């Protein structure tokens, strides 16, 4: 404090103290007068003089003491210099002791505040929403994640107005009354459904000496498990889809068997016709099972990249040869445009065969009659962004181009999903399983490559597979 104001000494107190101090001297004077050693006038004068002088000496001392008292009483955060206490050594002593005390207390408070701040910061940084609840079911504290989730400030409001879910409220009651900890799952409805795992936990220190000052008794913790629930849903959907896909041909085969054993027992024409259909359906089931098996096999190995070296040229010619009959039936020519000298790629020959088999047979199936399917290979300086960074440079790309009807833009991102079909009826008719491109995608992923699809409706589609070259293959060119 810049301006030093001495405490004013209340007159009554000063008078009382003075009278107390002069009492022995006055008693001696009265004694002297009674014994006749001193004249009454002189005695009265001496007495008054003693009182006045004592008062005068006492006054600054009392003022010093009052100053010190005021200093001691002051708040810790008030910045005060200790009083000078010129007249009283005792007051000076007390003042210096008080200064020491103030400093120590100040340090302690600062440390405690810093700790509280860091705890608060910790709470605020936690990504999961947290709420601290007191005995009256009020939210006493929350972190920003909770406010973001609930969309408003939630502190100092009753829990029920923030989270109404009866399960949570019951769990909170149980925790407050019996100290029971509970874990539950709730769904937040709304335009986007979200699933949460909620943990209601009584605070261990909520009662007794270490009880938090804000009265928090329990912690409500929310953990977003939407992604988990969705994944589980997808898995269930996949199983349902797969069994549905298998059941359809199975039902038709069973139906034909029933007919063949019953009404069409002796009908040779029907036998031929039905057996052909049954063969077709059974083949479809077999293909589907093969595809499902290879898909799950590839998925199992997807995280370990292949190590062998493969010659793309050989694979592509073999696949093209194998599809010759299919292509001729459809009147589609397969044109291979492969450079004479091609570096080998890292890859599993069987899997890559499956990739190009699927892509080329798709191109033949969906290409228009009397058009050509072109398969070309080239080297690119840099693969597409979808490729892992480590294998991106100097990639090889195989384009499989058809002149079919093309695929509308909205289907492109979903093409590689299992059982996703642009046109279900047409795919079934052409004998597709709905898994071909999913298999391609997983194999290409395992090879640390990328699959891109370009398509123009009415002009045709290009499926491009980017593959990393085997190391050292570019030096010996």
């Amino acid at each position, binding site marked *: 404090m810049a301006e030093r104001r001495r405490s004013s000494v209340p007159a009554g107190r000063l008078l009382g103290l003075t009278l107390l101090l002069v009492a022995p001297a006055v008693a001696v004077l009265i004694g002297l007068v009674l014994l006749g050693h001193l004249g009454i006038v002189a005695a009265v004068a001496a007495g008054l003089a003693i009182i006045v002088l004592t008062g005068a000496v006492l006054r600054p001392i009392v003022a010093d003491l009052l100053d010190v008292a005021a200093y001691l009483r002051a708040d810790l955060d008030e910045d005060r210099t200790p009083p000078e206490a010129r007249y009283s050594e005792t007051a000076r002593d007390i003042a210096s002791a008080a200064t020491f005390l103030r400093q120590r207390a100040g340090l302690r408070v600062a440390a405690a505040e810093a700790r509280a701040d860091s705890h608060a910061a910790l709470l605020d940084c936690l990504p999961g929403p947290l709420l601290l609840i007191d005995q009256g079911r009020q939210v006493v504290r929350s972190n920003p994640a909770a406010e973001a989730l609930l969309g408003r400030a939630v502190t100092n409001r*009753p829990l029920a*107005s923030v989270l*109404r879910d009866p399960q949570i409220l019951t769990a909170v009651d149980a925790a407050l009354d019996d100290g029971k900890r509970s874990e539950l799952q709730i769904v937040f409805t709304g335009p986007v459904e979200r699933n949460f795992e909620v943990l209601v936990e009584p605070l261990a220190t909520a009662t007794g000496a270490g009880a938090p000052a804000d009265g928090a008794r329990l912690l409500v913790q929310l953990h977003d498990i939407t992604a988990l629930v969705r994944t589980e849903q997808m898995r269930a959907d996949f199983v349902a889809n797969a069994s549905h896909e298998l059941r359809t041909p199975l039902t038709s085969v069973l139906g034909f068997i029933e007919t063949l054993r019953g009404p069409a027992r002796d009908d040779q024409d029907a036998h031929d016709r039905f057996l052909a259909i049954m063969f077709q359906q059974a083949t479809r089931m077999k293909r589907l099972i093969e595809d499902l098996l290879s898909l799950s096999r590839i998925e199992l190995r997807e995280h370990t990249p292949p190590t062998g070296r493969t010659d793309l040229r050989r694979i592509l010619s073999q696949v093209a040869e194998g599809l010759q009959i299919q292509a001729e039936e459809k009147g589609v020519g397969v044109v291979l445009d492969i450079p004479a000298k091609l570096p080998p790629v890292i890859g599993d020959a069987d899997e890559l065969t499956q990739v190009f088999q699927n892509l080329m047979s798709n191109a033949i199936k969906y290409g228009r009659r009397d058009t050509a399917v072109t398969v070309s290979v080239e080297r690119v300086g840099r693969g597409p962004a979808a490729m892992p960074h480590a294998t991106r440079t100097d990639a090889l790309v195989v384009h499989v181009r058809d002149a079919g009807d093309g695929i509308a833009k909205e289907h492109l991102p979903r093409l590689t999903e299992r059982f996703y079909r642009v046109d279900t009826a047409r795919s079934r008719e052409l004998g597709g399983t709905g898994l071909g491109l999913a298999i391609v995608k997983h194999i290409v992923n395992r090879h640390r490559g990328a699959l891109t699809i370009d398509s123009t409706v009415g002009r045709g589609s290009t499926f491009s597979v980017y593959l990393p070259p085997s190391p050292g293959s570019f030096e010996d060119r």
Partner: protein
Amino acid sequence: MPPLGTPHTVRAFDAELDALNQKIARMGGMAETQLGDAVQALVTADLALADQVIKGDDAVDTTEDSVNEMVVRMLALRQPMADDLRVVMSSLKVAGALERVADHAAGIAHRVHTLKHHAPVPAVKSVGRLGTLVLELLKDSLDGYTNRDTERAIRVWERDEEVDALYSSLFRELLTYMMEDPRNIAPCSHLLFVAKNLERIGDHATTVAEVTHFIATGKRLGRGRPKGDTTASFDMPESK
């Protein structure tokens, strides 16, 4: 929820008002869960969940009784005035609406059992969509009520039209199914009742929104609520 206005001299009154508000919020959560579960049970044909909804209705009724008791006590002992009176009286109305919501939800759950005896109709999905919309509205109206959020209340009040429109189109869809195949008549009639239940729940959500507006502003929302339900003047669609 912070009590409106300044704290009262009788602090017990604040505590009681707070308890009442909490009870209503809790009851809202119950009604919401009942409705959500009922719709889920309908769409997934989950009989166990439907049973749970039917059993859960009692808890909502009990809560409504205790709200009524609290309101009567407060009226008799504290004689609230002005905005307090509005809050206390409207609690009665909101609790009534929520109890009806839970009743309708239980009604839907009963129909899940009946529907199980019939071949599944694809229209269940459309009814489920109506259910999701109504649930969203109910949630919004309760959020509005617990926060005294007039804007949200008005939004709910306006969106009830969507429910009515969806209900009308659903009505038409169900009629079409019935005309296509007489075997669809039984399940579709049940779905028609479910849809009507949902439409009624939408109306109750609107009631809650109106009450919110009344508490916060002391004024009523106009009578001219947009109405999109035209089923009253609906003939059988012409068969082609």
